[in-house]
């Protein structure tokens, strides 16, 4: 589903590579934690997967597509198959819960009939039914992140990328979000989650990929956050 082949990324302003000859493969339906110290290249990995950035060297395949051969105007179609969730939720403050999720479908031209069917369904999946008319600032942090997850998942993507989705949440709320991501993963969606949250990684016992200075230093199935720390 995601294949990195000797990928390096050097940002123009940096002199140290954010990713350094990284090779790894993530299969369809996997749940992968991306760990490593701050600045180790986790977000860069996600951005390259989304084709927000292009690699300096190496090849990337996502959902069967060679990203270096993907022309600019086809990038949106790639992104429709990938859902994304961020630490800061990224909701539109002047739109209700329902509208925020519907927005993601509207802007890719989905018909109203499908929106009216899919949005309530995904709201139920994330446990927010009954709160569809609230504005984001009338929700708790955990609920806002559920909206973000719902928006990422409403189009049934092949891949869900999450960049520290629990970074702003307390441990109890985080567990709720993790259960949600686990449920989404069990529908067959590949989930890649960058995180600093040790207890979550240790509890879930999923595949763990550890980066340091942009290099792969550990790839462990059913792993833990770190042996040394």
């Amino acid at each position, binding site marked *: 589903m995601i294949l990195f082949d000797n990928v390096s990324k050097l940002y123009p302003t940096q002199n140290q590579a954010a990713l350094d000859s990284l090779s790894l493969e993530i299969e369809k339906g996997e749940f992968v934690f991306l760990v490593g110290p701050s600045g180790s290249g986790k977000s860069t990995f996600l951005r390259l997967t*989304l*084709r927000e950035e292009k690699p300096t060297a190496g090849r990337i395949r996502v959902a069967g597509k060679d990203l270096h051969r993907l022309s*600019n*105007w086809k*990038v*949106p*179609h*790639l*992104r*429709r*198959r*990938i859902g*994304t969730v961020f630490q800061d939720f*990224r909701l*539109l403050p002047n739109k209700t819960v329902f509208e925020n999720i519907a*927005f*993601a479908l*509207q*802007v*890719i*031209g*989905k*018909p*109203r009939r499908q929106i009216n069917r899919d949005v309530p369904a995904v709201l139920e999946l994330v446990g927010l039914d009954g709160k569809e008319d609230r504005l984001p600032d009338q929700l708790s942090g955990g609920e806002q992140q559920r909206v973000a997850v719902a*928006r990422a998942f409403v*189009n049934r993507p092949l891949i869900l990328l999450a960049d520290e989705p629990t970074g702003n949440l307390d441990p109890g709320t985080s567990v709720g979000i993790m259960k949600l991501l686990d449920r989404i993963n069990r529908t067959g969606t590949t989930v890649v989650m960058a995180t600093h949250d040790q207890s979550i990684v240790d509890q879930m016992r999923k595949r763990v990929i550890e980066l340091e200075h942009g290099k792969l230093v550990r790839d462990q199935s059913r792993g833990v956050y770190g042996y040394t720390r």
Partner: protein
Amino acid sequence: MRFQYVLSEITTGLRRNLTMTIALVIVVAISIAMLGAGLLIRSQADTTKGYWYDRIEISVFMCNEYSTGAGCADGAVTDAQRDVIRQTLESHPEVDEVFYENQEQAFERFSEQFDDSDIGGIITPDQLPESFRVALQDPEEYDGVVSAVSGLPGVQEVTDQRQLLEPLFRTLDGFQLVAFAITVIQIVAAVLLIGNTIRLAAFNRRRETGIMRLVGASNFYIQLPFILEAAIAGLLGSVLGVIALFAGVELIVGRFIAPNLQFTSWVDSADVWAATPWLLVAGVLFSMLASFITLRRYLRV
């Protein structure tokens, strides 16, 4: 294409950037008015030139009894000399028509011109020269005709109005050039300003556009509301600009210039009507183009 979505996006966009939208409309209005004024000045200069070109004549004055000068050594022009001159003129390829004016006719015209004064009483017909008035095929080509007749015996003087009008034509050319330069500068300024306004609008909505990019909205879908916004503002602006142009032509030319300066025909609202479709199209197209170029740089995938 979800039409309703696009529509609501545009209206919220226009409302949210109300001050910017107003600025945009004003900029476009001024530019279009200037552009229209430039076009009108061009066509005015053309009309004026044409008007004068049609009236350009060469006057060949012939000797009378009082004449002095090289060609008039024999005194007043003889019939034979007059025939030679007429022959020369009529056979010249650049000559369109030749009119003869005798001393009586010259006196009548002279008296008409100085209707109110007493000069009519002092001057007598035999003091005035008889002449040929020559209309040219191409008003630019007067040199050949002038030199063909100026040396002939019986010719006192050859004058061509082209020489008199040369400064006028040069001034008109200058006007056209200045109008053109102003128009170009105005368009460049307008495109830059529109670009800036759209960039600000895009910046104000970077949250939305960021999310749209993430969920895979196409560039076209992301840019369309901005471009349509620019088009609407452009249309409003050019309508205002055209109205200003109508008012300007009506007030300045219609009320002030045309009644007082009747040496040519002046532009009027019919000319503005003729330019209106082009001005509206230009206003809308330039706005859309400016926003499109800006967005290509600021809303990349």
